[in-house]
């Protein structure tokens, strides 16, 4: 690398970090005279109930319908609600069974990162009646009632690979649906949600096995199919739910939990940066630059990846991966010091060999953690997935920044001052016989020699 090239490389990295940092937080920016609306990507990171609160909706279970086995039906409804919310990407939402002071059963749905209470109802499809009717008229006779006949609905594909809506009926529903499809074969049935016309479906043949798929002539988009499924699913709830309250709730960790997490993070990172510079000097500067790249990339990935909903466990994943990113740098630098201390290699060679000899350790350490993260991602329940995802991103980035960016920065440093022991905090061991590990107070040692 020539001096010119190394200055270019360092400037590019610095500008990248600064731009990424700016775009993370700015709200609007101005080019020329026009003002652009933009939300910094760091602000778009989805946050969990514990970090930012959300909306809590409490439904009272209407037990007046007189059907037995309320407990089972409530439990079934809770499961349906949970899977509905997870399918919408709200992995951190909670659905809890409760009893209010009147002794009535309640279901409490808490959805994070939502400001508008009405939005919760959009998400879970306003638990309401779902009716199939023979004609486009609200007052027409019900052919099929969701809560009585429909077991579940799901997004699927038809034989042509187009998205379609799958229906599965329960035992009573199978008989009823068979009758209906016989009677209305070749005609249309009309689906009403909460007493309002939603869509109509043409019946092509009699269906006796209780399973059906609904296709559209133009083909559904995934989103259309999903919306339809949501409506159908919320019509299958085994119990009638009445909304008793929908209110905004604050973070369970306390009002200022995000601010506190940010302050603690800033102090922690600041101390780590200082620590690396004090202990490793020039090498520390390179590590700090690589860590800056790591931090902006981590924030960016958290913002753009759809599975990330940041909660306290997610923060733990980030803390651990930051720790591992720093660790990788420490391992490399200890090796470099070791290489330089007990051989006659010049600084660039010592740095190169230090990287070479620490790569295996870093990769092995990271891969084992990565195995854990992937298994948790696949097998863990919803709230663990958030943690696994942040850990996964963090580890990949930590390997990338320590093995690629730190090396690049150090390579770029080389043409500028490749002989300065003082800058890199490196020192040759005077006594060849005692060539043990340098203990890490090399700032001091280098000064003594100078």
């Amino acid at each position, binding site marked *: 690398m020539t001096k010119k090239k190394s200055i270019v490389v360092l400037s590019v990295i610095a500008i990248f970090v600064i731009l990424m940092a700016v775009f993370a937080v700015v709200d609007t920016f101005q080019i020329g005279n026009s003002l652009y609306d933009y939300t910094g990507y760091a602000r778009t990171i989805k946050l969990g109930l514990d970090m930012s609160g959300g909306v809590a909706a409490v439904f009272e279970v209407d037990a007046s319908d007189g059907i037995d086995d309320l407990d089972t039906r409530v439990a079934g409804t809770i499961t349906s609600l949970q899977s509905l919310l997870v399918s919408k990407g709200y992995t951190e939402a909670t659905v*809890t*069974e*409760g009893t*209010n*002071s009147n002794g009535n059963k*309640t279901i409490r749905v808490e959805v994070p990162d939502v400001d508008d209470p009405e939005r919760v109802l959009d998400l879970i499809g306003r638990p309401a009646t779902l009716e199939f009717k023979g004609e486009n008229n609200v007052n027409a006779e019900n052919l099929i009632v969701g809560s009585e006949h429909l077991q579940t609905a799901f997004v699927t594909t038809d034989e042509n690979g187009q998205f379609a809506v799958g229906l599965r009926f329960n035992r009573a529903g199978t008989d009823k649906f068979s009758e209906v499809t016989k009677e209305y074969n070749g005609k249309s049935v009309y689906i009403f949600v909460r007493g309002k016309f939603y869509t109509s479906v043409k019946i092509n043949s009699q269906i006796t096995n209780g399973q059906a798929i609904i296709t559209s002539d133009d083909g559904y988009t995934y989103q259309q199919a999903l919306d339809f499924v949501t409506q159908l699913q919320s019509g299958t709830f085994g119990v009638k739910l009445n909304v008793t309250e929908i*209110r*905004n*709730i*604050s*973070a*369970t*960790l*306390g*009002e*200022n939990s995000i601010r*506190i*997490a940010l*302050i*603690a993070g800033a*102090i922690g*990172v600041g101390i780590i940066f200082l620590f690396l510079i004090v202990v490793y000097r020039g090498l520390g500067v390179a590590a700090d630059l690589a860590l800056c790249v790591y931090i902006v990339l981590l924030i960016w990935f958290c913002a753009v990846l759809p599975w990330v909903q940041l909660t*306290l*466990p*997610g923060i*733990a*994943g980030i*803390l651990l991966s*930051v*720790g*591992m990113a*720093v*660790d990788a740098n*420490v*391992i490399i630098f*200890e090796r470099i010091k*070791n290489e330089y201390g*007990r*051989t006659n290699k010049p600084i660039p060679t010592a740095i190169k060999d230090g990287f070479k*000899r620490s790569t295996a*350790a870093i990769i*092995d*350490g990271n891969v084992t*953690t990565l*195995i854990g993260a992937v*298994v*948790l991602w696949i*097998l*863990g*329940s*919803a*709230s*663990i997935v958030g943690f696994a995802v942040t850990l996964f991103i963090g580890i990949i980035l930590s390997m990338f920044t320590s093995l690629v960016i730190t090396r690049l920065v150090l390579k770029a440093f080389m043409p500028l001052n490749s002989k300065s022991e003082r800058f890199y905090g490196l020192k040759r061991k005077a006594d060849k016989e005692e*060539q*043990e*590990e340098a*203990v*890490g*107070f090399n700032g*001091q040692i280098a000064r003594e020699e100078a």
Partner: protein
Amino acid sequence: MNKQKSSFRNLCNTFSVSKYGKFFGMVPFVIVLIALIVIVALGATGGSYGDAVGIGIDFEGGTILTVTIGEDILDDVKFEENRVKITEAIEEFGVKVSYAQKITANNPDNTAIAFRYKNISRNDKDIDDLNIKIRTAVDSLYERENNVKYESIGATAAQDLLSKAGIALAVSVVLILIYIIIRFTLMSGFAAIIALLHDVVIMFALTVICRVQINSSYVAAMITIIAYSINNTIIIFDRCRESLKPLKGQKNINYERIGDEAVRSTFTRSVYTTFTTMVTVIFLAILGSDTIREFCVPIILGLVAGMYSSVFLATPLWAAMSRSFDRTREKYAKRNSVTYDKDDDGEEIILATAQPKAVTASPAPKAVKQAGQKQQSNKVYKYSKKNTTFKKK
């Protein structure tokens, strides 16, 4: 100052973890014993072992007490004052408030605070009686009528959170074990996994001793520590692997010495890493609310346990296990050669016994030769620095 540093360095250069391996092994047992005593004592007096362990509201459910106060508490300072006041009133009754949340509605006059606490009894009637008492007590703090209501809630953590996390952990432990066995040695794998299990047990024991409530975020804290500890152990084992490379095929390898050397040469890094990982968690614990602290304390304890296990347990364990593994293999090889002896002449025996090492390692000609020489002189090969430095040209 300088003197202190050099004595620290001396300690680092001469310290042997293998020598005190037994002593280091005792510490976890003592901690687990204390935790067991705490659980049994509290469980026997309190009647519930779940409470004794400290299972929190996320897993067991409890009560939500909503206190409607009005637009006053839209202000953060006022909110905090009221929160503290009511929390004290509730905790008078022996329950512990796990979460306090501000609740806002369209009408600012309905702004409320919701407190969640775990019930201390399992009996529905007792729970109700207590909640009524708490309601009366909190009611008397405010002039506003009918401002307190309560609702019992079930577990917010999904029923399958623990079982799924357990299965995921078991699967990852097996996969990690396989990976370590492939990349390192069989004994490294077992030593690392034992260290990992140690961390899980110790972190849990320390959590019980410190009386920290176990809620759903605890599972994540536990996994964090496991990942941290495995990484830590691997870095040390990497050094062992490197020292072992030139000794491949030799007998009576001084594993203890290699382990000590590896621990010593990575000790600076172990301390630095624990420090840099911990610093943010410590600040989070200092600045954060009680709930955040409940999450951070187990992590801090776990980081210490994780470092302890990889430095003081995994390495001596690895050394002891590798040694006895070698010995067993040798014995096995000898026994095989003895049965072999019955059919064949003496010359064959020497060949058979001279090669036991070549069974697993790809028998590089040099290694076989070394092993052969050793057989004749029966010399103990001590680990030596000369063998481990790679001079690459």
